[in-house]
């Protein structure tokens, strides 16, 4: 994927337009992430959209520039972090005296608020893992040279 990326970098329109769009794609990803309880979407879709913004950056500016923005190490860590957030919410509800992944105990005063908090955190975990794994797959594919 190296060669087309290099050629793409010289295309002024592609470069300017993608730079203009990337912040909006990221913002839309965050909106889908945190508005998932009220509108369509959720962690999975948000993670994919978030990763797609970085894909666009990588396609236009090349893999090396993308890896300066999002290093391998960061992808690896957040890949595991998402699952840990999700499982951690379960452990937290255990420690607070409920069942595993029983969000009601997260807020002792208001069960409904606890449910919302739990869903928000769990979706965050899904989003982090999904966007990190999309990036990991992209890196793995794009990092290979043609045989």
């Amino acid at each position, binding site marked *: *994927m*190296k*060669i*087309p990326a290099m050629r793409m970098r010289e295309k002024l329109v592609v470069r300017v337009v993608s730079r203009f769009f990337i912040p909006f794609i990221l913002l839309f990803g965050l909106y*889908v992430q945190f508005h*998932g*309880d*009220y*509108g*369509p*979407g*959720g962690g*999975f*879709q948000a993670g*994919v*959209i978030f*990763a*797609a913004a970085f*894909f666009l950056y990588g*396609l236009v500016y090349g893999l090396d520039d993308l890896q300066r923005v999002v290093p*391998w190490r960061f992808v690896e860590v957040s*890949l*595991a972090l*998402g*699952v840990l957030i*999700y*499982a951690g919410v*379960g452990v937290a509800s255990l420690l607070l005296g409920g069942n595993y*992944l029983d*969000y009601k105990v997260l807020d002792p005063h208001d069960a*409904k608020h606890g*449910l*919302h908090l*739990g*869903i928000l955190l*769990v*979706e965050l*975990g*899904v989003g982090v*893992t*999904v966007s*990190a*794994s*999309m990036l*990991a*797959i*992209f*890196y*793995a*594919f*794009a*990092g*290979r*040279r*043609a*045989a």
Partner: protein
Amino acid sequence: MVPIEFLLISFLVVTALVISRMNYLFAAAMLTGIFSLLSAGLFTLMDAVDVAFTEAAVGAGVSTILMLGTLSLTVREEREKPLRVLPFLIVLLTGGALFFGTLDMPAYGDPDAPIHHYLAPDYIEGAETEFGLPNIVTAILASYRGFDTLGETAVIFTAALGVMALLASSRGKRAKEEE
């Protein structure tokens, strides 16, 4: 059925036929993206907005890019192959069996369908009274089916690990040597 659904389904069929007959792989990869976009449109018409969202983001977006990335590692043209009869017959037979199977299914949107009488009413009511969430899908996904979603997240994690182990090992080594 509304005419626009007919239109979308016939476009789907045409796209699928064109993909199967096409030798130029770049165009075939782009057409799979269009196929996903058309299915996303169909899902939206069926009020499955969350599924449509996923299909548009993953099918039309990410997987098309990954397919193009794979194409850059291989040739752009598929070699001409003669039509083989036995595989074609098996595909026809399987497709026919699936069509035959749909005849037994309840009509689309039938309120008496069994699926609407088991847990779904509880979920629909619970999302309103217990959660106060307008998006029932999120309530089911993150809470009623929280264990499943935890498993799915672990599956995605494992899949990414597998891809990294298979494809990225040489790169990781190279990056370390550079350091």
